[in-house]
């Protein structure tokens, strides 16, 4: 059975100290400053961050897609194999069949001139599956993402479907090649909230049923907590905290994670928002110390001098000089 096979394998995704920088006239500009992240087989991990955090860059790095002229160091392994070492045919097969990516705007990723059926079966036919079998699989996949009249849908064009339906088609197509890892880059940010609920429910079910790992990128902490096993919080090209989703509101330790939760307005009552001062920074704008130091209410001298490393504390990994004290300093009651 596939799930057991995968569980016996090494981590589905293992990123160690990934650094990406771009050449600039006045020196290299870092985009990722040393990202470390792992996903076990069958696990769903949320990657949360604001603009410039590098979350999309990290996902694209897993597909071995880098910005032009980028300098890359560190390791990115999928199912034990190094992605960075791939090239040519092996890379094409990897991208087509071993990892799947779902994007924020499906309409710009699906050829509007070809039918839905062609889009979904393309990957399968590439693997050598005969046309008839591929169509059958496609129809059952469309049904599994709650699309009625699947046979009819196969003949439709992308322009005939709404954004939410198209995103389901995107999910179906990614599932078609049975990859071990799915990367979802803000797949619901452009959708209505009711459609979003439907799409993430479908995505979560699909991954669980097939034992696939999922990297879910979003800016919405609560959304990530709802559908993943663990959450990683990124800022300025670094992972600042990783912890189990269920324990997000009770066990978080990094001041940035707490600040993110606090700066969200509440659905039920009006209250003055504890906004984080300043604006989210990109990797190249941070100095030598902690990337959050300039905006952190708990910052002390050492915070602007040396960069804290990601280390294990209790159930989480935290990159903060004051991680041990944070448990006592954060008002967990105010976070809910």
């Amino acid at each position, binding site marked *: 059975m596939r799930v057991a096979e995968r569980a016996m394998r090494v981590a589905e995704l293992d990123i160690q100290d990934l650094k990406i920088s771009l050449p600039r*006239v006045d020196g290299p500009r870092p985009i990722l400053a040393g990202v470390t992240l792992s996903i076990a087989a069958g696990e769903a991990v949320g990657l949360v961050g604001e603009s410039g955090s590098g979350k999309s860059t990290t996902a694209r790095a897993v597909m071995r897609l880098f910005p032009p002229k980028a300098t890359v160091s560190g390791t990115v392994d999928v199912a034990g194999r190094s992605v960075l070492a791939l090239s040519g045919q092996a890379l094409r097969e990897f991208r087509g069949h071993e990892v799947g990516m779902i994007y924020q705007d499906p309409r710009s990723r699906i050829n509007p001139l070809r039918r839905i059926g062609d889009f979904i079966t393309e990957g399968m036919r590439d693997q050598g599956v005969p046309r008839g079998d591929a169509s059958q699989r496609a129809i059952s996949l469309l049904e599994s993402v709650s699309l009625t009249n699947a046979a009819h849908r196969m003949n439709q064009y992308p322009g005939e479907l709404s954004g939410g339906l198209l995103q389901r088609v995107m999910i179906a197509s990614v599932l078609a090649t049975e990859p071990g890892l799915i990367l979802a880059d803000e797949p619901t940010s452009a959708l209505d909230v009711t459609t979003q609920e439907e799409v993430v429910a479908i995505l979560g079910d699909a991954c669980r049923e097939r034992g696939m790992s999922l990297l879910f990128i979003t800016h919405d902490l609560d959304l990530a907590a709802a559908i993943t096993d663990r959450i990683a919080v990124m800022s300025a090209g670094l992972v600042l905290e990783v912890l189990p989703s269920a324990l997000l509101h009770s066990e978080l330790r990094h001041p940035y994670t707490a600040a993110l939760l606090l700066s969200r307005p509440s659905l039920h009552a009006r209250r003055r928002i504890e906004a984080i001062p*300043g*604006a*989210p*920074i*990109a990797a190249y*704008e941070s100095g030598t110390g902690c990337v959050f130091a300039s905006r952190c209410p708990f910052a002390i001298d050492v915070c602007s001098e040396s960069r804290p490393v990601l280390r294990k504390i209790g159930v989480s990994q935290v990159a903060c000089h004051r991680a041990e004290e944070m448990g006592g300093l954060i008002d967990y009651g105010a976070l809910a």
Partner: protein
Amino acid sequence: MSTIGRVYPPSVFARARRFGWATTALVVILGLIVLAAIFAPLVAPDSPTATNILDTSAGPSISHLLGTDSLGRDILSRLIYGSRLSLLGPVIVVLLSSVIGTALSVSSVWIGGWYSVLIGRILDLLFSVPSLLIAILAVAFVGPGLTGPVIALGLAYTPYAARVVQSVAIRERNLAYIESGELIGFGGWSICTRHLIPNVMPMIRAQATISFGSALLDLAAVSFLGLGVQPPSAAWGLMVSEGEAALLNGQPAAALAPVITILVVVVMVNLLGDQVDKRSKRAL
């Protein structure tokens, strides 16, 4: 507070480095050519019209760096003096077509409705006329010389400028800052002149540089046919046809020099236009 983006450095060398050495070289060389045209009397070694029957179709020498033509006139001097009309003509063509084209397309995008349809039809009409033909026809009406062809070409090139400007104008017009200007109460004319056209200007510039080359070639063709600049004035196209006789006499300089000059100038302007175009696209 964080800021994104760079502050543009003011010094000339930094600007040159930003634009690349190739582009800077193009600008410098073309600039020198323009200066030579403006200060022709100071730069040219001889008078362009001084004939010398004793020294016709001579090869290059110290006193005549490029030789003489079939009437004994110094080729280099004719080239330098000729650049005045040969460069001025295309400049006027480009100015005319850019101004009219921009006015038509921006007003069409702003006003919309039946006006837009009408302008579209007018531009279609202008598109269908071959530029060289209309330039020659202009001579039939106005008489030989550059005036007729320049105006005619100005009109013939208008739809190209208009089309290029229109696509960018439509995109800009739909952006929120234009609409917020309307909400504040600015009138159509103010918004178009103060906001819409300046943001469309990079495209206009790019198109202008590219059509300069075509205009130069078209006008040179008109002069070559004897319908444009009249002898004894100097113009590159005219020099080519005048150089035919010397060519047949075994002295190609009189015809080759203007041909190569036209070629070099057109290529350089096109390359420059390419750079300008790339830069405007990057900024979009």
